[in-house]
């Protein structure tokens, strides 16, 4: 039977080509993703251990215990401790550091490569040779006083700095300017992967990141033969354990690597979804191909049965063929996957986010997954056709004429399909009453969508007839060719449906995503600008950073500015959860925020009196006039609650956030007491926007920590990430559409092969070659149209049903149909039929009219 399977496979190379391609793509994405994940993890582990290579043990200051006296809060990490540590046996070298985070402006005064955990700063600490071995100087000299700094080469290149330049920088508040005196090199991957590094002299760094005379950490390297854990123990013995602790470098590297790996795992999700889609769609292709092969081979199979092959042998030979196809495809897919893995880091890396790169790591898991998935899916998909082959009766060998495929409609199919449809639609419709986008509701939505897809797949053969009759009205315009194309597409509704199903899924997903994406984007648009009366928002982006009061004053004085409302942002515990609270000036707030009060007003805000958003009011069951306990979330470890009177309830507003208070009141409990985090600026009408923006940036000293955004930029920022995500999804689904095209090629090639006699007759009776080509092409378009229409209907329904969940999460959400995108999707899906039909159409047109009279 192996021989038969092998011979069949070789005899139908072309038939299996599309199957091979589909399985190959799926396996490629699976193995590519896994190899990518392994390689990235290895590379980041490698990079991290490089960063901590010479560090056996790190000594850091301990958080002071609650209620500590000022004396105890003083760091123990000073030069005396460093000398003491150097004396510990097994310590080869001591390297203290005073490091922290510094954000710089590039030469053009825009923030430079701002990214969490990648804007490092340190002290340049010369050793006995006058050089800091961690940061070899490439140009210039080391910083010597508080007016100087050094940066690394990549930072200088990205920022456009040259020696002697003034560099603007900030830590968490005031803007500083220092002169660039040196450029160093570093191997720290956090910096080399699109981060920044700034170096100061010892005194400056200690003042900025620790306290004068103290360090933030002391790194120790071990003498040969001393284990880091052993050293850590010895070091701990000499430390003032209430104020300092020792950690091994390996443990630190692990912590960092875990962080990077979590990020990497996020990246692997999308390609795996990709693989899932291509394999799911591919499995239809496989079922179709094998079913057609079995049908075409009916006589041969019957002959085998007649001469004594058992049912099991017959079905096994089909499965064996599938196994061979799966093996070849998976093998090819694995190689392709290595290619994907090697380009993925470049694709996923963006300017601000570079993935660690290293050699490809091919683990046994990747190989097993590629083979398992490819072979498994192929064999599983071929299982139904193999059963069909086993059912072929020996008598079929004696039949001479080709059997017309039965167009019987199964009642069971109809009932099952309808049941699924009702179930899926029911689940989705029941969710339309959902009040929130909770995990359970989202899961139900997914289940509903999946059931709906299954229902459409089951019902597709039944729906084929009415839908294609409908599209036939259009193809009918092409005269008899169009009519024949329609009839041919209807000839085997199951085959047509299975072919169209792949396109249906892709189109449905694309259409659904497009609608949800568009609706969400519009909601974000209106949400981002909804509560804003101001023309510009100046913001630090985080409650832990402040805008200097001088800058606040300067903004107010800027020409063209009518109102500038300073806002203090902090968080507070209200009703058991942490909420964002904004401290504003009640007199000017109505000019810069568009507040829609359900009850009360902003005028009544004052000490001890707050306004809350509608959601927060509902959650806590308060109305205007009620009292509310607000707990401060600050550095104070003991939480204190204060009673506030609610003076107003406003519609949810992203600018006002969860609660509003007067600034003096709110700022008391800010992370930096009395600080300002946002300034909402309203200009006089008619001011030229670009100059105002520039002036505002100057007013805040061009601080790299502060953004100045107009409404449009705010909206773009809110919609940005969503757009990127959708584009990736669209890309993946486009591959789905391409695989569907392979399916259409396959089906058409089969039907042309089955209909040689008929096509010959048409040629004899007077249809010219272009007519034959047009007929095949129209059949492809008909199948594509069927899949597209079904997908569109399913996608739109799904998007509508899921929309209510989105609505619960975003009040501004409403169904907005992206007509342009939908039209484009339809046209593309339809158009896919034309290239798909190219080869089968050419083959059909090449048939001679003599085929009609050939002995069958």
């Amino acid at each position, binding site marked *: 039977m192996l021989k038969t399977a092998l011979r069949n496979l070789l005899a139908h190379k072309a038939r299996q080509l599309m199957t091979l391609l589909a399985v190959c793509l799926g396996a490629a994405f699976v193995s590519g993703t896994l190899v990518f994940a392994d390689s990235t993890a290895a590379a980041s582990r490698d990079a991290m251990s490089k960063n901590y290579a010479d560090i056996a043990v790190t000594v850091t200051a301990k958080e002071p215990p609650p209620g500590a006296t000022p004396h105890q809060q003083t760091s123990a990490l000073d030069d005396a401790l460093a000398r003491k540590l150097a004396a510990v046996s097994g310590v080869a070298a001591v390297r203290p550091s005073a490091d922290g985070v510094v954000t710089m402006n590039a030469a053009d005064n825009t923030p430079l490569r701002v990214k969490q955990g990648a804007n490092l700063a340190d002290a340049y600490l010369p050793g006995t040779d006058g050089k800091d071995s961690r940061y070899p100087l490439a140009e210039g000299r080391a910083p010597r006083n508080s007016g100087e700094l050094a940066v690394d080469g990549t930072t200088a290149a990205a920022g456009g700095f040259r020696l002697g330049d003034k560099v603007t920088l900030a830590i968490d508040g005031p803007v500083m300017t220092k002169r660039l005196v040196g450029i160093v090199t570093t191997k720290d991957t956090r910096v080399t992967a699109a981060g920044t590094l700034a170096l100061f002299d010892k005194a400056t760094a200690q003042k900025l990141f620790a306290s004068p005379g103290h360090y933030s950490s002391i790194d120790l390297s071990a003498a040969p033969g001393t284990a880091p854990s052993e050293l850590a123990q010895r070091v701990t013995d000499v430390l003032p354990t209430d104020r300092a602790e020792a950690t091994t470098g390996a443990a630190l590297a692990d912590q960092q690597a875990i962080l990077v790996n979590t990020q990497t795992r996020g990246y692997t999700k999308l390609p795996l979804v990709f693989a899932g889609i291509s394999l799911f769609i591919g499995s239809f292709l496989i079922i179709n191909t094998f079913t057609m092969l079995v049908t075409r081979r009916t006589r041969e199979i019957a002959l085998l049965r007649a001469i004594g092959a058992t049912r099991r042998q017959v079905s096994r030979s089909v499965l064996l063929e599938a196994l061979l196809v799966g093996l070849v495809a998976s093998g090819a897919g694995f190689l392709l996957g290595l290619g994907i893995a090697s380009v993925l880091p470049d694709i996923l890396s963006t300017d601000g986010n570079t993935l660690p790169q290293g050699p490809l790591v091919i683990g046994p898991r990747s190989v097993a997954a590629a083979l398992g998935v490819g072979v498994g899916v192929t064999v599983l998909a071929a299982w139904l056709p193999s059963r069909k082959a086993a059912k072929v009766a020996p008598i079929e060998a004696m039949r001479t004429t080709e059997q017309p495929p039965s167009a019987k409609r199964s009642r069971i199919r109809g009932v099952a399909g309808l049941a699924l449809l009702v179930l899926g639609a029911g689940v989705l419709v029941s969710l339309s009453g959902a009040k929130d986008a909770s995990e359970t509701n989202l899961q139900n939505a997914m289940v509903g969508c999946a059931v709906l897809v299954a229902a459409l797949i089951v019902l597709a053969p039944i729906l084929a007839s009415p839908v294609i009759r409908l599209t036939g009205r259009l193809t009918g315009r092409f005269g008899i060719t169009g*009519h024949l194309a329609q009839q041919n597409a*209807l000839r085997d509704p199951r085959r047509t449906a299975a072919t169209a199903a792949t396109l249906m899924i892709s189109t449905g997903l694309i259409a659904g995503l497009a609608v949800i994406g568009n609706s969400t984007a519009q909601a974000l648009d209106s949400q981002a600008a909804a509560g804003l009366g101001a023309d510009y928002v100046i913001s630090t982006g985080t409650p832990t950073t402040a805008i200097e009061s001088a800058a606040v004053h300067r903004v107010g004085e800027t020409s063209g500015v009518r109102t500038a409302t300073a806002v203090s942002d902090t968080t507070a515990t209200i009703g058991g959860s942490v909420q964002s609270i904004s401290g504003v000036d009640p007199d000017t707030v109505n000019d810069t925020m568009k507040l829609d009060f359900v009850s009360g007003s902003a005028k009544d805000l004052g000490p001890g009196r707050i306004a809350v958003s509608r959601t927060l009011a509902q959650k806590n069951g308060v109305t205007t006039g009620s009292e509310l306990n607000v707990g401060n979330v600050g550095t104070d470890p003991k939480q204190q609650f204060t009673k506030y009177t609610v003076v107003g309830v406003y519609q949810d507003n992203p600018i006002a956030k969860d609660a509003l208070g007067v600034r003096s009141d709110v700022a008391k409990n800010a992370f930096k007491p009395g600080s300002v985090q946002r300034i909402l600026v309203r200009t006089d009408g008619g001011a030229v926007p670009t100059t105002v923006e520039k002036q505002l940036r100057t007013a805040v000293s061009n601080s790299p920590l502060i953004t100045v955004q107009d409404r449009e930029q705010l909206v773009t920022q809110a919609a940005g990430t969503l757009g990127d995500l959708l584009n990736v999804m669209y890309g993946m689904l486009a591959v789905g559409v391409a695989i569907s095209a392979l399916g259409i090629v396959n089906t058409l090639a089969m039907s042309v092969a089955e209909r040689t006699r008929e096509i010959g007759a048409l040629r004899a009776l*007077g249809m010219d070659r272009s007519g034959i080509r047009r007929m095949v092409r129209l059949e492809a378009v008909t199948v594509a149209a069927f899949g597209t229409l079904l997908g569109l209907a399913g996608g739109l329904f799904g998007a509508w049903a899921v929309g209510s969940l989105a609505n619960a999460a975003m009040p501004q959400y409403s169904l907005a149909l992206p007509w342009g995108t939908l039209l484009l999707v339809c046209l593309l899906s339809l158009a896919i039929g034309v290239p798909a039909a190219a080869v089968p159409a050419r083959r059909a047109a090449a048939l001679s*009219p003599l085929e009609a*009279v050939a002995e*069958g």
Partner: protein
Amino acid sequence: MSATPFASRAQHAVPGIAAATFDLSKVYGSGDTRVVALDHVSIDFREGEFTAIMGPSGCGKSTLMHCAAGLDSPSSGSVRVGTTELSTLSDRQLTALRRDRIGFIFQAFNLLPTLTALENITLPLALAGRHPDQQWLDRVVAMVGLSQRLGHRPAQLSGGQQQRVAVARALASRPAIIFGDEPTGNLDSRAGADVLGFLRDSVRELGQTVVMVTHDPVAAGYADRVVFLSDGRPVDEITHPTPGRVLDLMKSLGALSYTS
């Protein structure tokens, strides 16, 4: 009338001749595998005449028909349908010629399974983008007795009925000539007799020209003229045949190895 070459006649279209071949040869393969299917055949098919072509298997009768009908291209010689010389035509022109001026009846019926009987009958007209002459169509349909079955698909019709649809299809476009390739080969004798009767009636009553390849003496008995082929060339012919005379001639030609 004659199977002997008449150069003057073949070179110029002659009124009353529906189709003609002149010095037609068809050779398959080369060297050792060279097979001469047609060996310099010149033959005329007159308008309003029912011609049967007979001969043993491999005598070239099917090839002759395929070449005369523009389905196959000859190795040398010429074929004329009416005034049109086929060798000068492009594939597209040849297709149009088959569609507009030639009718076909195949042994295996070759109806389009997805079309109804009526749609099959009007298929050549639809391919040409022409509207059927309703009166003519009614007459043809009535003649083959299909009025009640026009909405049926081929699968719902018996073999005889399918072949009657094929006859009607061949007649519907009023072609200059109809070629039949063993039109009764797949039918029982009664259904076959019906079909042959229609063909003869179409010649007698409608003035149609019909050329039919057959190996059945009974079928040939319906024709006005029977041409005998052997080894790729015409060897004899008789007019106003009866099955008995045909059989006698077949016996005398010593070609009784008819198989199908």
